[in-house]
């Protein structure tokens, strides 16, 4: 038999397609099979062989190996040949009834992968059968198929009851079927943002735990990941869970080990005995260290995760420092990560060993790694004052080696150390200067010049060195020039007349010769400063240095917590918010045909719409901070806008987050995107002018971040002359029962600067309806005293619509509707965008993400009508109900919304006016 490899080489020849076509229609099976292979090979290389579709499809009747090739081909080209694909439906259906379980599974697996509606329609019957197939191989395949179907057509997946059938599979006797059902349900739960889909409770958890030991390694990971999101209610329960999963730490698969660690770390805070927690930390340490004997790519993931773990468990590896010593054979990315861990594990006990290693690394051939090693030493020095002396001695040793790329790096590293511990290690300065001619890199040179300037009075050669540098100042980069200028001034202030000449030369260069505006400005400033006398200059240039924040490179606490929750994930490797990695699910638009096929619903007593996918999969709006840079603009936009992000640092400036669909633009203004508001004050309302605010102007707005968690975002601008501090904030009682969740952070705003703060709010105060839709706020600060302002809650009404509540029950909806007198109803005509009007599903989707839920809809009456409900969060416990009449004939046109509320009469009208406007904007 000729090796198949040759098939890859036939490319480019004229008539290749013709040859293949002949082969596919040949009389002998052998020839046909051969042609099939060549077709698939060509497809893999990216050549277009779609024109052979009909010829390929003819070969489905062959044996299983040919079938597999044909199916592989079909998956690739079905979408581009939708009409022809229908031809093979019959084959699929026939195969789904084959006596061989492999073929039955293959048929449904392939069918489910083809995102064509006409195929999925035919998938339902075989899939129902497959979920109850006698053979577990077919059942486990079918379980995954449900997730696929949900991905392409969620409506169908729900309406056909596949989700329920999937849940039944959780009790299947076959471990692989169970783990695939868990995987599929977790996936659907995530996509629909319905975490309750997978029943996790004190009753079901033990069942999952016992399935654990029977599953394949991959199945174990699925189950561990799934039960990781369950929070036990008692410490005993947590104890039992831990006990059941701890043995898995001994599994040979690193992914299983990390999945176990992830669950343990989540359960850890729930355990009541410190002894137990210590035991677990000890228990985890050895298996984690063993991950360092895996291939380098896995080591890399492990090391990135370790740095998350040691933030919370600093003693996890305290006995294993040597395991992180770098091997010469490690790739650079592993070496760098080991170095990072070493820096953080260093303490007085192991300092000698670690520093000796760093010295060794600083001599490595790989310049990049050697430089990182030097930088690590300074990080240790800055982090641990008691070791700083030792570190400086190490620098002195390294300098003696006179290696150019390292000497420069030592200068940069020393700058940090000297800045952190002023006047403590001056003896190293002359030594560094001795090797100054080795320093070429501009950054290193800047650092050197800074050091010379700072220590000019203790360094006899300072002035002469500056003279040499100023001689060649033309050749330096602008950053070095600026440093030289400042250093000269420092030297002049510190050494007096001796440095006068060089300072003058440098200032002359800066103000007269240089073409850089920055340098010239600085030159002029210094010139005038000196005109005020040396003392003034001294005050400025020798002012206290801002200390070095060694925690700077650390991950913020809230992000760190999120990352620990998603240990072993891509986000945990990048140390970036997991939300940035949650790509959008590819969603097929729910077309009008789907609407048509949906059952008619009558308000009076038909099946509830809760299960309807139109709402089921629109909940992502509720997700916590789902804003993502990478998301393409589309249906997910709502998620972006409403979700907001608690990790604003990870977001790009809003300009990059351009939103360009018309519908979204209107939404944007409406729903107060929090990420926008932080970056640009324009989006905020002016709440208090500087005159009224005693020198403090305040802009701000209310936003909902995660579900029902509210924030008052304030931007405080200090226009006064003196710094403001000692801030405190207080809210008056109000209709939505808003209350401070935490006192205001203590901030300090220098004159002319602004600060943005977030005040977390709760809605568990007392509702005070007398205040109307006004939130009165008082801010106290010194020196301004107390200032008052009000936030218009009506404007922020959308923030209070509960996005979690779901639609009202039909009977109570009807009852509530009838209770409101007809005259209290508010009707507004609205313009409806034609795209929207064509898809009721999309309307419910859009509305649900804004907290307005569809109670029922009548798609087939003319004009179509939808019944909506929206509940307010908090103890106010009020509901707005609305009847939305869409334009006749479903084209663009004028519709009508009539709404009623259970609010007190005087509040009802403004609220309904606002509500109707919101709906109108959503539909535009």
């Amino acid at each position, binding site marked *: 038999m000729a090796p198949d490899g040759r098939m890859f080489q036939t490319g480019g020849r004229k008539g290749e397609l013709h040859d293949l076509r002949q082969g596919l229609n040949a009389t002998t099976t052998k020839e046909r099979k051969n042609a099939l292979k060549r077709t698939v090979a060509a497809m*893999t290389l990216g050549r277009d062989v779609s024109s052979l579709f009909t010829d390929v499809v003819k070969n489905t009747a062959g044996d299983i190996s040919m079938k597999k090739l044909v199916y592989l081909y079909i998956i690739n080209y079905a979408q581009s040949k939708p009409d022809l694909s229908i031809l093979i439906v019959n084959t699929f259906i026939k195969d789904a009834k084959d006596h061989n379980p*492999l073929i039955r599974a293959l048929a449904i697996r392939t069918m489910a992968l083809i995102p064509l509606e006409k195929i999925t329609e035919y998938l339902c019957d075989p899939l129902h059968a497959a979920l109850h197939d006698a053979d577990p191989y077919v059942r486990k*395949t079918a379980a995954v198929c449900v997730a696929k179907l949900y991905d392409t057509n969620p409506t169908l997946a729900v309406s056909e009851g596949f989700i329920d059938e999937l849940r039944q599979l959780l009790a299947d006797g076959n471990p*692989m079927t169970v783990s695939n059902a868990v995987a599929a349900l977790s996936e659907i739960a995530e996509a629909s943002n319905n975490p309750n889909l997978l029943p996790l409770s004190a009753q079901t958890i033990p069942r999952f735990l016992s399935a654990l030991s029977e599953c394949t390694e991959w199945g174990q990971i699925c189950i561990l990941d799934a039960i990781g999101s369950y929070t036990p209610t008692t410490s005993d329960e947590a104890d039992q869970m831990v006990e059941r999963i701890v043995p898995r730490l001994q599994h040979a698969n690193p992914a299983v080990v990390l999945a176990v660690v992830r669950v343990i770390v989540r359960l850890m805070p729930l355990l009541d005995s410190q002894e137990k927690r210590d035991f677990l930390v000890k228990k985890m340490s050895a298996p984690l260290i063993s991950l360092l004997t895996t291939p380098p790519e896995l080591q890399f993931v492990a090391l990135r995760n370790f740095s998350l773990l040691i933030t919370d468990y600093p003693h996890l590896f305290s006995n294993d420092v040597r395991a992180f010593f770098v091997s010469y054979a490690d790739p650079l990315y592993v070496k760098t990560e080991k170095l990072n861990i070493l820096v953080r594990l260093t303490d007085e006990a192991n300092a000698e060993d670690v520093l000796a290693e760093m010295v060794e690394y600083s001599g490595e051939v790989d310049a990049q790694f050697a430089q990182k090693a030097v930088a690590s030493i300074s990080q240790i020095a800055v982090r641990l004052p008691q070791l700083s002396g030792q570190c400086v001695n190490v620098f002195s040793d390294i300098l003696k080696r006179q290696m150019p790329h390292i000497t420069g790096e030592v200068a940069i590293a020393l700058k940090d150390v000297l800045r952190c511990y002023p006047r403590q290690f001056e003896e190293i300065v002359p030594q560094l200067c001795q090797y100054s001619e080795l320093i070429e890199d501009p950054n290193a040179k800047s650092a050197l010049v800074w050091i010379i300037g700072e220590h000019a009075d203790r360094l006899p050669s300072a002035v002469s060195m500056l003279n040499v540098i100023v001689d060649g100042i033309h050749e330096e980069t602008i950053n070095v020039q600026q440093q030289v200028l400042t250093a000269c001034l420092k030297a002049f202030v510190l050494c007096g007349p001796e440095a006068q000449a060089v300072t003058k030369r440098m200032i002359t260069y800066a103000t007269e010769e240089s073409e850089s505006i920055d340098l010239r400005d600085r030159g002029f400033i210094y010139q005038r400063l000196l005109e005020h006398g040396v003392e003034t200059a001294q005050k400025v240039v020798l002012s206290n240095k801002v200390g070095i924040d060694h925690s700077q490179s650390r991950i913020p606490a809230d992000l760190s917590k999120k990352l620990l929750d998603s240990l072993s994930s891509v986000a945990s490797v990048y140390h970036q918010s997991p939300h940035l990695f949650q790509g959008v699910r590819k969603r097929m638009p729910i077309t009008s045909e789907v609407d048509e096929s949906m059952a008619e619903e009558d308000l009076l007593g038909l099946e509830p719409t809760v299960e309807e996918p139109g709402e089921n999969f629109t909940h992502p709006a509720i997700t916590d901070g789902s804003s993502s840079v990478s998301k393409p603009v589309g249906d997910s936009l709502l998620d972006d806008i409403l979700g907001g992000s608690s990790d604003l640092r990870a977001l790009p400036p809003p300009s990059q987050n351009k939103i360009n669909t018309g519908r979204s633009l209107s939404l944007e203004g409406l729903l107060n995107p929090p990420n926008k508001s932080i970056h640009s004050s324009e989006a905020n309302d002016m709440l208090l002018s500087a005159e009224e605010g005693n020198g403090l102007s305040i802009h701000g707005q209310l936003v909902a971040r995660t579900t029902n968690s509210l924030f008052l975002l304030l931007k405080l601008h200090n226009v006064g002359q003196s710094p403001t501090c000692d801030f405190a904030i207080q809210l008056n009682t109000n209709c939505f029962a808003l209350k401070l969740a935490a006192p205001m952070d203590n901030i300090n705003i220098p004159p002319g600067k602004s600060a943005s703060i977030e005040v977390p709010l709760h809605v568990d105060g007392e509702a005070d309806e007398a205040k109307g839709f006004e939130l009165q706020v008082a801010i106290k600060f010194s020196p301004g005293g107390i200032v008052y302002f009000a936030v218009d809650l009506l404007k922020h009404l959308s923030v209070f619509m509960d996005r979690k509540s779901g639609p009202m029950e039909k009977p109570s909806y009807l009852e509530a509707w009838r209770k409101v007198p007809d005259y209290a109803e508010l009707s507004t005509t609205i313009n409806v965008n034609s795209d929207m009007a064509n898809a009721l599903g999309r309307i419910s989707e859009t509305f649900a993400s804004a907290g307005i839920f569809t109670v029922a809809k009548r798609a087939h009456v003319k004009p179509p009508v939808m019944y909506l409900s929206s509940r307010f969060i908090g103890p106010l416990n009020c509901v707005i109900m609305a009847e939305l009449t869409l334009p006749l004939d479903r084209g663009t046109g004028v519709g009508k919304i009539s709404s009623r509320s259970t609010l007190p009469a005087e509040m009802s009208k403004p609220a309904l006016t606002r509500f109707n406007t919101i709906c109108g904007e959503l539909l535009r």
Partner: protein
Amino acid sequence: MVASSIFILDSRGKTIISRNFRGDVAMDVINIFKQRVFEAQDDSQITPFFRHDEKGITFIHIRHANIYLVAVTRRNSNATVILTFLYKLVQVFTEYFRDVHEESIRDNFVVIYELLDEMMDFGFPQISESKILRKYITQDYRVSESTGVLPVAATNAVSWRSEGIKHIRNEVFLDVIEKVNILVSGSGNLLRSEIVGKLVMKSYLSGMPNLKLGLNDRLQFEASAARGGPERKGKSVDLEDIKFHQCVRLAKFENDRTISFIPPDGTFELMGYRLNTQVKPPIWVDAVIEQRPTRVDYIVKARTQLKPRAIAKSVKIAIPVLPDVDTPSFKCTSGRAKYAPEKDVVVWSIKQFKAGQEAVMRGHFSLPSIGKAENRENATKRPISVEFEVPYFTISGLQVRFLKVVEKSGYQAAPWVRYKMVAGDYQIRMS
């Protein structure tokens, strides 16, 4: 949850195999990966992870021989699962066609597509036991056990062993292989010594045998004593961490340190273990370099620090030399030395190196008079590396005490145990 698609690329970045599992990424995204990898200035710039922010996708890849295995995901997937899965692919391919490289991937592309289809569904890893896969993925691949019928074991709790296996002679072989990782500083201090061991089993047993393995593991002794078993005497070993094959009952091990399992048929790695103990480096090397303007002399001394009667075999000591040396000449008291200019090392090989023996190698090189002292300085910063193996010996002292085989047909099976120590990451820094 996991991979959207998987690609196998050749050394020039051309796609050999591509499989789209979820349809949520376009298949041409692989070009982004190619660009990033092949435009990188040197290998050190390449990390296993690449992220393309605008498209919101992450590439995760490993390299094996001259191919790249790349997984693409657009979610916050489990990175460890993806990487272990890619390594699993290589393992399964290896078991199918021995050498995995560009040519063998091309030659076997049909079976690879089939395997991918079987091993991953919608991005979720599925069946990855090659012993089971081989029972039914046999396309164009002549495997004697080919049946084309799905084995029951595929989805079973015991997913690694088929029922009804028959062997004429029931035998089981156990290889205990210990890798010793050593790091010695330039001043001769032992910085790190670690033993990474594994037990590789070859089982040729009929039916569904239940095996129980006894080691001289200290905790196993203690657990057995606690259960009222006989007090054990003799040396025991403290294993720091143990990793088991899927087949071992982990809960039982956690309870009473008993290692019990139903083995797969054929060869598999039963367990791996690791211990960090201060051990005497089995082979000690000292190198002295005398560098003069036009020549450089190496005097390298090696000696064994083994138990009496142990013999180190196939010893290879690689000593780094300056990159611009020429006209080498060597004198060795035992073994042979050879200059390997492509790696800038001298490899000194000794076939048999007995316990307590010492050997010296003297090497002389000429140096061109022009040469950068700095380059020469750097060259000596590389460590000496040592390879060797010592049969019938474990440095940790681990011993197999028993291996009980229980099968309902009641046959007897004698276990055969072999021990071996090999050098792992064994480095001695030059002073």
